[in-house]
């Protein structure tokens, strides 16, 4: 797949960088990634990674609280951050003429933060408000319950935001320690996409990044051999209009991009478009679901293939049986070749649609680089070729005939 011109480079601090040339983009995206998501939190410090992400914006050794936002926005930029299960990233979108200043502000903010007690206590309140607000988003609420139930003793059972009681127990020193331990060059990467200035290497070479000497190597942290539950679990929820069903299968982690793509293609066959197998049967013809979706919940330490439906409570068992039945029949479907061909085009188009802007590109290449995947677009092209084979895909489909975990959210 011809996505963009990509160049990899290592900063003197040992921080890996990726530069993605996108000539048409009016903005440059600078995306600073760290292996410092919730998987790296200690068990009793749930919510710490996300709390730190909030606190990073409270100032640094050179920037007063609020100064970073003000200066970036005055440069015509926009900044934000996001914490995930495995990683956290901080990004700025900026007009090309201001890239040097924005880079300097971002690296200073993220690598050299200074926290104070007052800001810490105020932000604690903000995070508790965020937790309460997320409980009104019923899809998110139910999905978090599902994740909590599906994995056995895995960091992915935790909620990214944490619970109110966890947040109250976090201390200022916990943030310092987490930052010191994980926000280091060996654990990070910088991704930059857009219309790069001619002297971009000079600009990046001169930017101040942390030294990597004598610091903890987070690669020592290893989360392996975790499995998911099998069987069914039911939870009751107030204030939902439809019940929900989640059927989950454990699949390889994001390290195995070939199989992840294979499951994306299977997902497309099952639920993309009105003619897809599950959509046509359950929504279009029988009309017994309000919606049906499938997809991958990818993680560096394990992934899930999920089929999710929203439906009336009385149809739960019927829908579950039909899904199992249709998955059985898929392997002997006489039209499977055509279905695969169509799904390949849909998935390929989606990749191109979703890698259009500089921020989408910096996110894609940054995340892959962080986890050691260089030139993911080359791998992607190879993998698309591999999955053209019906026999290859059939082997993968068989894994969905094995025991799974089903989570039911009953409408109270």
């Amino acid at each position, binding site marked *: 797949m011809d996505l963009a011109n990509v160049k990899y480079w290592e900063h003197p601090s040992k921080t890996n960088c990726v530069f993605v040339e996108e000539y048409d983009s009016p903005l440059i995206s600078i995306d600073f990634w760290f292996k410092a998501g919730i998987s790296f939190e200690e068990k009793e410090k749930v919510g710490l990674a996300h709390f730190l992400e909030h606190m990073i914006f409270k100032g640094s050794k050179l920037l007063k609280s609020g100064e970073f936002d003000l200066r970036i926005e005055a440069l015509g930029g926009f900044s934000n951050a996001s914490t995930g299960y495995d990683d956290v990233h901080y990004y700025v979108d900026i007009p090309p003429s201001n890239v040097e200043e924005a880079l300097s502000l971002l690296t200073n903010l993220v690598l050299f933060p200074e926290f104070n007690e007052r800001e810490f206590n105020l932000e604690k309140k903000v995070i508790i408000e965020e937790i309460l*607000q997320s*409980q009104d988003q019923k899809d998110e609420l139910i999905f978090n319950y599902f994740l909590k139930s599906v994995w056995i003793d895995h960091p992915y059972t935790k909620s990214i935001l944490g619970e109110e009681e966890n947040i109250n127990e976090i201390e200022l020193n916990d943030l310092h320690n987490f930052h010191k331990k994980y926000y280091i060059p060996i654990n990070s990467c910088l991704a930059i996409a857009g219309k790069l200035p001619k002297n971009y290497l000079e600009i990046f070479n001169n930017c101040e990044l942390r030294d990597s000497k004598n610091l903890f190597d987070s690669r020592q942290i290893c989360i392996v051999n975790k499995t998911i539950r099998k069987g069914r679990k039911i939870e009751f929820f107030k204030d939902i209009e439809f019940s929900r069903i989640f059927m989950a299968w454990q699949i390889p982690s994001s390290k195995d991009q070939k199989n992840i793509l294979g499951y994306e293609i299977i997902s497309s066959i099952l639920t993309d478009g009105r003619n897809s197998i599950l959509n046509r049967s359950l929504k279009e013809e029988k009309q017994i679901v309000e919606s049906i979706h499938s997809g991958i919940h990818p993680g560096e330490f394990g992934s899930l293939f999920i089929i999710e439906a929203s439906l009336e409570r009385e149809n739960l068992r019927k829908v579950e049986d039909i899904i199992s039945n249709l998955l059985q029949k898929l392997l002997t479907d006489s039209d499977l070749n055509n279905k695969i061909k169509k799904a390949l085009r849909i998935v390929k188009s989606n990749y191109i649609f979703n890698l259009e802007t500089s921020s989408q590109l910096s996110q894609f290449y940054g995340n892959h680089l962080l986890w050691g995947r260089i030139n993911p677009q080359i791998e992607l092209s190879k993998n698309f070729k591999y999955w053209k084979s019906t026999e290859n895909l059939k082997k993968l489909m068989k894994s969905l005939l094995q025991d799974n975990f089903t989570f039911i959210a009953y409408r109270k």
Partner: protein
Amino acid sequence: MKSYYLKLNHKISLANIWIEGGTSLDKKDEKGINQILCKLLTRGCSKYDNYEFSDFLDSYGAELNFEAFEDGISICLKSLSEYFDKLFPLLNLLIEEPNLYEKEFIYCKKESLDYLRKSKENPFNIAFNNFKKIIYIDHPYSFNCLGEEESIKRIKHYDILKEYKLLKKRKKYLLTNNAKYNFLNLKKIKPLNHFKDVNKLGSKLLIKNNYIEHYSNSKQIIIIIGSQTCPYNSKDSLALKVLESYLSYGMSSLLFKVFRENNGLTYDAGVFYPSRKFNAPFLIYLSVSEKNASLTLNLLLSIWNDLLSKKISEDELSLAKLKLNSSFLHHFRTCEDIIFRKVRLLSLDMDPFYDEKAKDRLEAISSKEILALTKKYLNYPCISVSGSKHVCKYLKKIWDRKY
């Protein structure tokens, strides 16, 4: 149909059709009919039944996105450029020769009812729909875009066929980034006059109640405060966009600083000021835990009072203008976003390059002008709250003391 071309990204091709008159054209006892019609248009046309139509799109990995808004229906076809010429004729077919079969109508009707029901899971939707009811009274903008349950149930197949006949007569605009069709280059059209100072709902608002509440089991209280303003093509709207920027764009904005940074009261506080053909709402929304609700409302009322009585400082005004100007770049980045924005501006009789040309006009906007506009439009705000009964009652007392 007026059709235009705009040169953009070459890998992805798009065509967006805007059909004038959306859910605001729903008759009083047919609330939801344009939403159903919008869905129905995409469920088969000419020789293609629903499945064949969908299969054709999927076989090229294409997307067809459609939505009925207050002012119009948007239908957008998107594919890789190499397949676009095979798909493009479908757009005309689905408008000129839709099948509109009864069985598909029944399906769409059920889907509308399901959407409407599911939207009630989020208390914010309920608070917002309540807010529209009090600020718009009987105007079509007062109704939920998704329709109303009893109305939807009453809609028959022949009602849809009648509505389709009306839809065919409505103005339509098409904009594509694919050069093959020899459409008029958007850059070559004569710029239209942006500014119309017409308050199409009438300048006097006969608001009966300025407070509405909804009780929910949520642990948070949702507060929405605001009023009707002006159409997007009014000369006042750009200055109100500056006000929106001052209040809510980025982490340097007033709402972020007051509610989040300085007081730790809310996670999310923002402004909603959409582009509308008729008077758009201008509102501040936020959600807050019960224990902080009264402090938050008092702070919000104090901000509202300042908007009506104090000029924004010169520094704040400059920053707000700068943020607004750069927001055009940040908000419209994908081909789909750019095409949608420009076709929408065309439908409002505005210059499609309004955003690109905003800088000069922004320079002329003063704090004095913004203050005059807040007095003109925001002097009689309404409030919608959602949350536990006892907190809503307490907030009402605070509100009643002020308004």
